[in-house]
């Protein structure tokens, strides 16, 4: 196994953890839970980009990771500021689990 194979395998592993947490997006139950899963993808995405950048020997990918990290909070801010202030009633019933 070459070294780059190791990084690719690791990136694959991180991609699989992303796939696992997608289940949380489907299950919810609250919008907050779904948003948090998206937040986790940001983190795993940064990890994947760093590993691929190393394995593919493309330093530009670390810049992509930098942009990911820089803007990782924007969606969550939009969510709490504009979406998740209404609609509690609707969720309340499914939240009982």
């Amino acid at each position: 196994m070459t070294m780059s194979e190791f990084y690719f395998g690791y990136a694959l592993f991180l991609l699989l953890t992303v796939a696992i947490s997608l289940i949380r997006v489907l299950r919810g139950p609250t919008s907050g839970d779904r948003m948090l899963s998206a937040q986790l993808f940001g983190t795993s995405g940064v990890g994947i980009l760093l590993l691929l950048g190393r394995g593919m020997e493309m330093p530009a990918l670390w810049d992509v990771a930098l942009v990911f990290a820089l803007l990782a909070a924007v969606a969550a801010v939009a969510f709490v500021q504009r979406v998740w202030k209404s609609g509690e009633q609707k969720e309340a019933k499914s939240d009982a689990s």
Partner: protein
Amino acid sequence: MISALSLFDLVLIILLLWLAWHLLSARDLFRATVLFITYGLLMSLAWVRLKAPDVALAEAAIGAGITGALVLVALGRFGEAESDEAEPGSLWLRGLVASAALGLFALLGWAVWSLPTEMAGLKAQVFERMGESGVENPVTGVLLNFRAWDTLLEMAVLFLAVLGAWSLGEAEEPSMPAPGESLLALVRLLIPLIVLVSGYLLWLGETAPGGAFQGGAVLASGFVLLLLAGVRPIPSLMGWPLRAALGSGFALFLVVAVAVTGGSRMLLEYPPGWEKGLILLIEGVLTLAIAVTLGVLFAGGRPPASPGAGKRGEKR
């Protein structure tokens, strides 16, 4: 043995297809939006795998910083209560559309399948003449020299989009909770870094992946963040300075395009020796113009006429 990288590709493709399907068929619109944001993130991994780092950078900036926030804000304005509506529609009509779509997919798939395996594309021509382009990153060379025409027209499209949004009315004052300390702290920390990274990407674009689009998109996310935190713009900037910034990209590009014409040179054919300087000038202005345009589009309307109730701004 299958290599880890091909397995990665396979999983990525399956996830992309799964997400595309589920985000379009989710009953809950919020769920669809979160899946859409994830889809954008994974798409930029696909660009990375296909060795298109310029595109990946733009997708990362736009997908993470702008599109997600745009859709979330629109969802907030629609009101969540209405988002859960079932999608009615007669079954056989859907079947009809589905079979038409399947037919289309078969055609497209066949077209892609039967493409010659070794297509030269325009790569040879581009790399052969890179020396004349004035820059070292081939994508920047194509965007701002060889096919600068495309970029010029793109700026026209952005300008038209703003005209369209502004003609629909003033941006309404959004109702949102007052930003807490932690949000304000985040904004204070991030805004300078966003400006810095945007400049970094612009500077990189000459030799490495990056450039005006990526820098502009990152800067636009800064405006998005300020608007989301409820930061008021300086009213005096909302008049002609804002309009000047919006028009600057298209206007400057057009002026340069016409000014270099003359003698035997055609529109947008930079005089030898001037390429680098002109490209730098255009890119610098484009970055700002793209950022302001996207910021204004995010605000969703023209700034209110009455002074003191402006909509978005830069330098606080």
